[in-house]
């Protein structure tokens, strides 16, 4: 192993779902302590802590966590980057190691989101006397959500999938529902998923409509959860035990992008361009191609989003996402299994935890520890997240050769 490589030494996610008896710090502590134990190290070994908790981003989750698991005076970076918060925390720890500031870091993402309901909609309530007065950068006299399009996440991502359908054809309500059917089927094998019940296509299409064509099970599941990872330099890893070296997973690429300006990106968020950029950079960094991937965990915040990312991540040729799905490729027994964890739709989406949890899923397979849902012989995997605004994280992981 090269001295300047970065490795995941320990990684863990909590059960996703409802945790009424645990607060945010409890969940973060559970994931962090489990990741440290998984890596065979303690807080005394950690040189940097990066932590994210999006819905309470000003609270300083990193320092709160230290007070429960170990205050050692190391630098703490509290990060917030929408749904890419977890990936951003991981990347922050990786950057600190790459910069030579330390040889081991801890990244944690945690969210309490059970019962949070619809995200993204609404507006500012008006004062007692209602007199129209232009406000803000659009000079709006009243709330525009629902009057000039929609601010809701299900509606936004519905349009993103429909836009792809308009451009390339072949999409339908049923196609998007089938994507969800796949993920709800995959999660039956994942004991840490928030939902583990198989759903038929009829059940998915017949469920409550949220924003056509996304029904409720086609939306990411709001839930509680945390995930944490210990990252280490190649040089430090050489000094650790053979067992630690064998279970370590190589971070072959770690990329974060934001959206470059595109004609319509401020009218409807463009989640495509920055994902394509991140994927291109990641494949180049890792020296692998999409054909080399044994599994992919991508940001299926809605069924309509999963479709466009097949294309954005280069899993199919441009415009070929519908054919790629219809070929059966992204099913767990297909050519490029996608979201064998169940994805955000079924495993769940505790926002800041997601970007580390999907890396845990990939590592779990690369280590050959995924039990019933193991993708046999997995050697290379990719994890992708996107947060609106936007931020995109792509990590490529490889099985240890040790």
């Amino acid at each position, binding site marked *: 192993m090269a001295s300047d490589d970065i490795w995941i030494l320990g990684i863990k996610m909590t059960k996703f779902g409802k945790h009424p008896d645990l607060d945010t710090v409890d969940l973060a502590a559970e994931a962090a302590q489990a990741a440290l134990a998984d890596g065979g190290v303690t807080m005394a070994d950690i040189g940097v802590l990066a932590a994210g908790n999006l819905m309470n981003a000003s609270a300083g989750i990193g320092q709160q966590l230290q007070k429960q698991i170990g205050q050692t005076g190391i630098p703490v970076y509290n990060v917030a980057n929408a749904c890419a918060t977890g990936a951003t925390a991981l990347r922050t720890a990786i950057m600190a190691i790459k910069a030579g500031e330390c040889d081991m870091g801890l990244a944690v993402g945690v969210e309490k989101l059970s019962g949070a309901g619809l995200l993204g909609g609404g507006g500012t309530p008006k004062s007692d006397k209602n007199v129209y007065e232009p406000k803000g950068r*659009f000079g*709006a006299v009243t709330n525009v*959500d*629902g009057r000039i399009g*929609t601010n809701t996440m299900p509606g936004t991502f*519905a349009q993103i999938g429909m836009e792809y359908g308009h451009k390339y054809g072949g999409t339908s309500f049923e196609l998007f529902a089938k994507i969800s059917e796949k993920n709800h089927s995959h999660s039956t094998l994942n004991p840490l998923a928030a939902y583990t019940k198989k759903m038929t296509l009829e059940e998915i299409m017949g469920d409550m409509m949220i924003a056509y064509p996304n029904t409720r099970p086609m939306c990411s599941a709001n839930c509680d959860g945390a995930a944490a990872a210990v990252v280490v330099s190649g040089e430090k890893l050489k000094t650790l035990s053979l067992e630690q070296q064998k279970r370590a997973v190589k971070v072959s690429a770690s990329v974060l992008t934001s959206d470059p*300006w595109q004609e*319509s990106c401020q*009218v409807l968020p463009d989640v495509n361009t920055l994902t394509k950029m991140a994927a291109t950079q990641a494949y180049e960094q890792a020296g692998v191609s999409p054909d080399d991937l044994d599994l992919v965990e991508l940001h299926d915040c809605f069924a309509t989003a999963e479709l466009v990312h097949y294309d954005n991540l280069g899993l199919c040729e441009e415009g070929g996402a519908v054919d790629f799905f219809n070929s059966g490729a992204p099913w767990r027994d297909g050519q490029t299994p996608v979201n064998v964890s169940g994805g955000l739709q079924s495993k769940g989406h505790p926002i800041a935890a997601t970007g580390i949890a999907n890396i845990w899923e990939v590592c779990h397979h690369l280590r050959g520890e995924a039990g019933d849902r193991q993708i046999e012989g997995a050697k290379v995997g990719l994890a992708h997240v996107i947060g609106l605004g936007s931020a995109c994280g792509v990590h490529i992981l490889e099985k240890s050769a040790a």
Partner: protein
Amino acid sequence: MAAAVPIVDYLVLGDDPHLVAQECTACGARFFDRRNACASCFATEFRDATIATEGELKAFTIVAFAAPGVPVPFVAGVVDCDGTSVRGNVINTEPDPDHVSLGMKVKLATQVVGTDDDGTEAIGFGFEPLEA
């Protein structure tokens, strides 16, 4: 006739209602809100650009579940108005997949969206089917 104000300042009312974008004088990028600089080329000069009132629906959703106070269902979409993407609702048609489709031709239409305590009406806009 009651006083009327546009829901946003990029909607111009009158006999021929239309939208106006801020167009970067350097690169032509168009924006609907107040800008500090152009997000595409960083220039700081803008001019008004009149947006075509007819276009093609290039993405839509039918929102069935929204924040409290937002009437549902409604159709939210993006309309390609002669090369400029515009966000807006599809109005004056049934909000269901039988009446709204990708690629349908639409045109700008205005409607009253509220009245304030002084009796001033807020005029909103949307896009209605061209063939309606």
